[in-house]
């Protein structure tokens, strides 16, 4: 049986807020790049700590690991399983800059010209250390595809804060 060869690998940048809903963008990437092996890079923005201690002990992997819930990991695993043919890898990257110049440098490292971003503001960062990279991607990446993200659950208030304890 003749099997159509997949196009060479493409790296797709996708902003994430570590929610299952945000993974819909991965599916839109598959829809937009059929017959292409995709290297999905999920990007989250993180404000670097402003103390010397914080910076010396800052670990990108650790920060990402803390955000990954079991449900999110399951959903990601399922997507990879369902689209094994299209997805080569799904990785995470932190953008720790503050402006477009920093993002352009970041993009050079990423070496990608394609991105899928949500059409409306659909990503909600877990706390003020994190920020949405959608606008940076929209302004700096060459080929940006905007896709609708259907929010199944409303964003939660800050976890483990005293306010959330009293605000029932």
């Amino acid at each position, binding site marked *: 049986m003749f099997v159509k060869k997949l196009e060479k690998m493409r790296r797709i940048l996708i902003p994430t807020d570590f929610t299952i809903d945000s993974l*819909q963008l991965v*599916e*839109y990437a*598959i*829809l*937009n790049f*059929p017959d292409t092996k995709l290297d999905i890079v999920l990007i989250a923005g993180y404000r670097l700590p402003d103390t010397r201690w914080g910076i010396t002990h800052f670990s990108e992997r650790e920060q990402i690991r803390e955000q990954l819930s079991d449900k999110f990991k*399951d959903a990601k*695993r*399922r997507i990879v*399983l*369902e*689209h*094994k*043919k299209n997805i080569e890898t799904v990785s995470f990257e932190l953008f720790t800059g503050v402006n477009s110049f920093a993002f352009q440098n970041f993009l050079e490292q990423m070496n990608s010209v394609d991105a899928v971003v949500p*059409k409306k503001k659909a990503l909600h960062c877990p706390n003020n250390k994190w920020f949405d990279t959608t606008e940076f991607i929209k302004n700096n990446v060459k080929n940006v595809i905007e*896709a*609708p993200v*259907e929010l199944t*659950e*409303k*964003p*939660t*208030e800050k976890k483990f804060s005293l306010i959330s304890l*009293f605000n*029932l």
Partner: protein
Amino acid sequence: MQLRTKITSIFIVLTSLFLTGIFVLIYYFSKTYTESEFYLRLSQRATIAAQAYLEGDEINLDIYDDIRIRHLQTLPNEKEVIYPVDAESKKPLVKMDKSLPERFYQEIFSDEYAELKKDDYYYTGLLYHDNEGDFIVVLSATDLYGFGKLDNLRNILIITFFISIIFIFILGRYYAKQALSPISKIIREVNSIRAESLSLRLDTVNGKDELTQLAKTFNNMLDRLQISFDLQNNFINNASHELRNPLTAILGQTEIALNKARSEEEYHSILKNIDREAARLDFLVNGLLKLAQTDFDSKGFLIEAIRLDEMLLNIKQNLDVAIPSNRIELNFEALPEHENAITLMGSESLLKVALGNILENACKFSNNKKVSVKIVSDAGYILLTIKDEGVGIPEDELKNIYEPFFRASNVRKIEGFGFGLPLAYRIIKMHSGEIRVVSQINKGTLVKIKLPNKELEYLEELKL
């Protein structure tokens, strides 16, 4: 009794008991400490008294008295008595104060020291050995300062207790109100939902608490209610509308045929048209019947074990006949080794209709471009992905695709009635499954179906 009052009362009772316990402990330990401190002072003074009187022959008695009066403060109602005794036979040599119990003296003989409290008086007794013989020195006094301190502490604790209770009452009432406010909100929101506003849903935040679960349960119930209501409301309208078209065509054709005498070819052509319209009518009525059936419970349907891969092959065979130019590619590469992982319990005829409709739509709306179907199994579920490269569904219309007779604005020219996907949605829901559609205009549509497999059912049975 209102739940709010009940919660506040329980809160107050529990806190009062806790506070009472704590305050009683504080009072008890303070009292014990004050008494032991006073006994210590008494014993020190008893020793001094003994030394002053019994060793007066060795040094100047006046000096002792002077020291005692000037440098050591006399205790309130202080009284000292010295009895000569025979320590060996444990017998007094003079008459002792009978108002004190006998065991007090016995304790002095055995331990050389004893303490006693009688009414407001504290007594300390000690056995003193001197070159003149053995003596029992008994010193008594009242602890006016200690009593005063303890009274003061008791009053402070009682006042603190009542102030705390008032604060706890206010805080408890406020917090009970806060805690119950989501329930009041749910009640308000549920009350505002009427038959004509069934599309309203309760606000749910992403959480795991019981109230979020309650709101989600309400929303699920409203989903089911809305589906039933919508069907009831729209079914007759839409069905009559859809049925009228072929009927009008048939009536038109018969009118033309009866209008005047026609040739055999003309009658043949008219009958052919009538046959086509009647076939359409038949298809429509069958479809409507199936749609109506799925709104009842699953009783009456034969539930059996279905291998999804076999069913998909079967559907593909049928579609190959109906749409010969279809390009459905079944991908069974990731099939699990265990049969149960891709087997589910359900109605074969209904699932065939559901999956057949989705696959037919994928072919129809992609103009027979490639349609990939992939089946994988994961953690108790069968995951079915159907991807086409068709016209896609407009973003703002995605939310309406499960409504019967709804047709997306970009496919109105393509033949169809708009009950394929709603029917599939209901059938999948009936099988405790989930269906999700991701679509983008001119890029394609991705339909994701998640159905519980036999392994999950077996695990759930084990749990029960």
